[in-house]
Each structure stands twice: as C-alpha cells, then as structure tokens.
C-alpha cells in the first residue's frame, strides 16, 4: 500500500531521498571522486572511443544526449509492438537501426557506452514521465502501476517485498551493509562484489537472488516496470553518474 502511494507521485520527505553514494565508506567516496583511481574511468574512456567510431556521425557529441539519459525507461513502438526500454536497451535498438548485431545488456561495449552517457548526464535530474499521446499515457500508467505492485509484492524464500527493506529499514544493518532507499541515481555501477560494471537490470536481478526468489531473465518486462517505478519514485533527484558500490 505504501509502495502504491509513492507510485502515484506523493512527495517523499527529503531525508528519505538519499543517494546510494551517501552509504559508501569515506575511502570509497574518495576513490569515486578521483578519476585516476576510479575503475569506472576505464569504461568511460572505452565508451568515448566507441562513441567516436560508431555513434558520433548521427548523434554528434555525447553531451547532446545529456537530458535523454535521465528520461529512461521510456516506451518505444517498433513493428506495432510497444515496450518499455531502458538506456542499455536503447543502445541495442540503435545498433539494430544501423545494421549491427545487438549485444548483451552486460556486454562490455554496452556498459561502456552507458557509462559514458550517464557520466555526461551527471547532475541532470531524474525525469521519467509519460509520453504525450493518450494511448501511450495509458500504457505508461499501466506499466508504472505494475512496477509499483512488484515493489510491494512479497517474493522469494525470505518472503520480502522491496518496500520492506528500502522503505521500512533504510539505515538499518543488513549483515555488513547499510540498507539504502534504493534510488537508481548511480547506474551503471562498478560493484566491488562483481569486480565489474553492471547495469540496473543486473542489480535488480541480484535483489531477486538476495531474497532467494526465481531470477527473471535479463531484459524481462518486470525488471523494466520496476525500474520505471524506481525512477518515478526518484524523480527530481540528480543523477550521480556511474558509481562505485560494494
């Protein structure tokens, strides 16, 4: 019930809207701020090379898409089939449009481009909103309601919904971790636990694993609905750019 109320756009008090960066240790925050020791620099630099080779001829500088990164997930219609896509999906849609093969969501090239686009979008406010047309609006509201429902639905052997920890237990200890409100402002993330970059898709699947539920396949509609709900819940927060997580 709480999750649904937030989904319908009720304002949250300021102190519950903490970025995940504020839950990092001072050492990790220092690492995050120094590009020379932040491993994410390697992905951003690769993203710049890929951008020059494959993207620049249509899109010009990555900065021109600065506001766009803050607007995902959004609805697209291709071949009369409407679906919700996030930024990594969009990179694959672009690849198909220019005749390349789509790659995985956790592919190194996909994550490098996503890291580049999110790094230039740093400071932009998260801005997930319904499309202008009436049919699109209805579909978007349905997807959002589904996401809000998922957020409040108990799953897994631990029988927990997202909201039990990420609304009810923010700041409490979960083993060695401190529970954050789960605002998606820092994706893609370099997670030390993974020793690699990962998209929000992978992070959400890791949550399913954490409560011992059946993992949805990468790119499944449920993950996008959940991402939409989380982005709407975080609307107005600044993007942190690609971030380090434990």
């Amino acid at each position, binding site marked *: 019930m709480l999750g649904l109320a937030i989904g319908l756009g009720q304002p949250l008090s300021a102190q519950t809207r903490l970025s995940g960066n504020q839950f990092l240790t001072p050492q990790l925050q220092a690492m995050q701020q120094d590009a*020379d020791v932040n*491993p994410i620099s*390697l992905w951003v*630099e690769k993203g710049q090379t890929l951008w020059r080779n494959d993207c620049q001829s249509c899109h010009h500088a990555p900065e021109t898409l600065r506001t766009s990164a803050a607007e995902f997930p959004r609805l697209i219609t291709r071949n009369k089939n409407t679906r919700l896509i996030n930024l990594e999906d969009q990179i694959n849609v672009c690849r198909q449009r220019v005749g390349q093969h789509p790659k995985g969501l956790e592919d190194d090239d996909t994550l490098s481009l996503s890291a580049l686009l999110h790094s230039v979008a740093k400071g932009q406010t998260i801005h997930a909103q319904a499309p202008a047309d009436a049919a699109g609006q209805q579909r978007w509201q349905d997807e959002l309601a589904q996401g809000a429902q998922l957020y409040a639905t108990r799953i897994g052997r631990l029988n927990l919904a997202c909201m039990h920890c990420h609304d009810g237990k923010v700041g409490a200890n979960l083993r060695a971790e401190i529970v954050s409100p789960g605002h998606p402002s820092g994706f893609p993330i370099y997670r030390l636990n993974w*020793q*690699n970059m990962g998209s929000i898709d992978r992070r959400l699947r890791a949550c399913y694993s954490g409560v011992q539920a059946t993992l949805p396949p990468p790119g499944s509609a449920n993950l996008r609905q959940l991402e939409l709900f989380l982005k709407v819940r975080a609307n107005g927060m600044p993007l942190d750019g690609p971030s380090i997580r434990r």
Partner: protein
Amino acid sequence: MSQTLDLRVRLSLSGPLRPNAEVEVRLLIGHMMETGFRYDGSGAHVAKDILQFVKVHMGDALIFEAELGTGMAANPMLFFSFTLPPQAADMVVSWSDHLGRTGQMRRPVLYS
C-alpha cells in the same frame, strides 16, 4: 611472434612534474583477472585469464615491475613512488598475460 593483447590502461602521476621530484605513479589496468577456479551459473568452467607481468620503463630505465597472479582482484590498481630523473622521457607500460600475449602503452611525461 607473440600475439598482442590490447588493454585499457590509465597511468597518472601525482606530484610535481620536475627533475628529481618524488611522485606517486598510479597505474589502473582494465583486466578481468579470471582465476580459472570458477564455474559459471550453468556449471561450465570459466577459463583462466590472468595478467602475469607488468613493467614500467621511463626512457631506457626499468622503474617498476610486478608479477601478478590469481590472488589479484579484477582491474589491478598498482601504485608506487618514484623519483623523476633529471631528463624527462616517455613512460612505457608493458604487460604480458599467462598465455604470453603482450602489449604496451606509452605516455609522454613533460616537466613543467
């Protein structure tokens, strides 16, 4: 002729860039450092892929060398302190993996 291995490498110097000054050299290398001990979700063996040797030369002088192994985390980050020589020269990072594939990266160093 050994195969080449392209890696993403970032070399930076922290400190004053002038003759005989001590600087901290920071080396960040993009490599998965796969141990060969793991099995993936489907039970398949994940092949070993380890960066074994890293060397840094400045001009003709070897200024740093390291032998890495399976105990090293992914994307190795290596720091060392170093007193800059009287004459500025390019720094060259070279590496080879456990299959003998090699590569290198050159970074110019100019004194201010």
